[in-house]
């Protein structure tokens, strides 16, 4: 039977691919911001499909906080090799050593906001004119306000009260020297869409997303993994739990949830029944009501 309409995942896929091809056509030196999380993996997968049989015409840029899950780095390196793309790494440790930023102190210290400087420095040094991100509008209330093609001034800043109008699918990519764009091909996807798509396309993702046994402690309402960077309080206790992660960020701030979901099918079923957002477990968003907007204004992902 012929059907002349796309189902919603096909339509979202087609939209994202259109956006990625517009990036390739409009910019000199675009990169995919690759964190090793599911969203940037999906964006990379879409880029592969968009240009096949040619190779992905973008490099991958990883802003490395040094506080990684080892599994993420392993996954990144294998993916880069199989795609034959170039990997750029911006190092937060180097930004600290060079005195560009200062490490936060205390138990809740993270390198999350330090990434902004490393990212903007890398964009400037490498003369990157477009950074493709896997951010989705459903993730967070400030992200719900993003355009597909989001302009950044020569300080890398976002001005949410003064965004360019964005009509139909006509993307204005014009910018002056020193300015750049952030482009978000999966803007319109929900967490559920991402998982549904990973399942449909059978996309490889880091093992951290599947339920596994891990040594963790209970903090800020989630299971924080043990690592060399974790400061443990007297009243906190490391236990072994079967957990999985809904999002991946720094090992110091990414909390896991208890789960038995060890296949993609089970993960999709679990996500469908979730009553809390995926970022609900991320300490970086909990700092204040406008934490994300404030970081984004400065140039965060």
């Amino acid at each position: 039977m012929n059907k002349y309409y796309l189902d919603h995942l096909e339509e979202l896929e087609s939209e994202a691919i259109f956006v990625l091809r517009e990036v390739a056509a409009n910019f000199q030196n675009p990169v995919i911001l690759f964190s090793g999380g599911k969203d940037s993996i999906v964006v990379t997968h879409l880029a592969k499909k968009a240009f096949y049989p040619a190779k992905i015409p973008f490099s991958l840029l990883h802003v490395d906080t040094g506080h990684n899950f080892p599994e993420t780095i392993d996954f990144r390196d294998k993916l880069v090799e199989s795609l034959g793309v170039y990997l750029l790494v911006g190092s937060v440790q180097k930004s600290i050593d060079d005195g560009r930023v200062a490490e936060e102190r205390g138990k809740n210290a993270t390198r999350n906001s330090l990434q902004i400087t490393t990212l903007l420095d890398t964009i400037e040094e490498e003369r990157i004119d477009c950074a493709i991100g896997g951010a989705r509008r459903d993730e967070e209330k400030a992200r719900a306000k993003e355009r597909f093609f989001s302009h950044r001034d020569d300080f890398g800043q976002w001005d949410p009260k003064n965004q360019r109008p964005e009509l139909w699918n006509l993307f204005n990519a014009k910018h002056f020297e020193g300015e750049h764009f952030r482009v978000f091909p999966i803007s319109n996807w929900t967490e559920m869409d991402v998982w549904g798509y990973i399942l449909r396309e059978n996309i490889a993702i880091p093992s951290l997303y599947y339920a596994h046994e891990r040594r963790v402690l209970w903090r800020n309402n989630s299971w924080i993994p043990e690592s060399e960077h974790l400061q443990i309080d007297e009243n906190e206790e490391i236990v072994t739990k079967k957990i999985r992660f809904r999002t991946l960020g720094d090992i110091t701030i990414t909390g896991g949830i208890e789960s038995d979901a060890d296949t993609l099918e089970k993960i999709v079923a679990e996500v469908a029944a979730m009553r809390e957002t995926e970022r609900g477990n991320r300490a970086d968003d909990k700092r204040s009501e406008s934490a994300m907007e404030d970081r984004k204004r400065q140039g965060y992902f």
Partner: protein
Amino acid sequence: MTTQTSQLLRFTTAGSVDDGKSTLIGRLLYDSKSIFEDQLDAIEKTSQRKGHDGVDLALFTDGLRDEREQGITIDVAYRYFSTPKRKFIIADTPGHIQYTRNMVTGASTANAAIILIDARNGVVEQTKRHSYIASLLQISHVIVCVNKMDLVDWSEDRFNEIVSEYEAVASKMLVKDVHYIPISALKGDNVVNRSENMNWYMGAPLLHSLETLHISSDINKVDARFAVQTVIRPQSEEHRDFRGYAGRVASGIFRPGDDVVVLPSGFQSKISRIDFDTKELNEAFAPMSVILSLDSDIDVSRGDMIVKANNQPEPEQDVEAMICWLNNKAARPRTKFSILHTTNEQKAMIREVVYKMNIDTLERNMDDKEIGMNDICRVKIRTTQPLMIDSYRENRTTGSFILIDDATNETVAAGMIL
């Protein structure tokens, strides 16, 4: 899995400041159980802190600090939810006239518009402005929600009064499919659940209407149009001879073997194959992103359009269009702009303002030729090279364009070709 094969409906809110657009979207999400617990917690806390009686539902979409401080929407917020019947993408847009450009942004990709009217105030100028923009954008389905019925004693007479007021306005525009629903976004009447306060209303609540709007026929399946985004030439041994044209089908259906013409050159060819990823397809239709290959070696590049030989758009250097001016700087006469139409970019100049719409009276003003912020005008534009155009009414993709100011790089106008 319920979401596997559902269709996507994109809709936008419209209407004047404080008519309750954001509250309605909050209510729709809340009553359809699409709100996560941590989001609800956060919003309950904020509402308490601000001294609201209950939960301020508008906070689900008003996500920017300035919006929360001022209690208004400034820029479009996109929200997502699904029911077993459909997936929805909502664009909640600002009512304030100053941010009309953001309303146009949200509305430009919508299949349906919900126009809110405050039952106490009836139709006001912003209602007309947004309705007119929605009709220009050819949004096929309009649902007029008469809101705040709780403040007019759930009065059937008041509802009917506003319906006739709006019908008088709508008759001066091109809107086809209009539905009317009396609601209270604040209390939840006729949003997801049927109202118990308005037994006189026989129709369905809003969500049910959204679930059942017939949208499949909105796509143009006749005029095959394919704008080339980029040329795919792999540098690998294995695919050395591959040369394909990447793009998204704007309308119509393409199949291998079809006789096609590449515009503007006019070269004729045949489609030799259609690819997507590792799959070879036997047809491609809107809005699929694919790669077309042709069976002759002709020069094709970004900005060219591939169409069927027996159904071609008009190549035009003189274009008549309706434009919405989106910039606070007025248009200076005879300024050059960049014009972006499909994937084709040229220089353009506004040669003549034919008339300007008076939004309040919905009449044409033939004397006022100034184009300022939020003005809607009929203009004549001349471009440096021909554009391959259709009328916007027949084709939203090949009938639309934007103007970009070369001095600032800002998008200054949205255009719909007549």
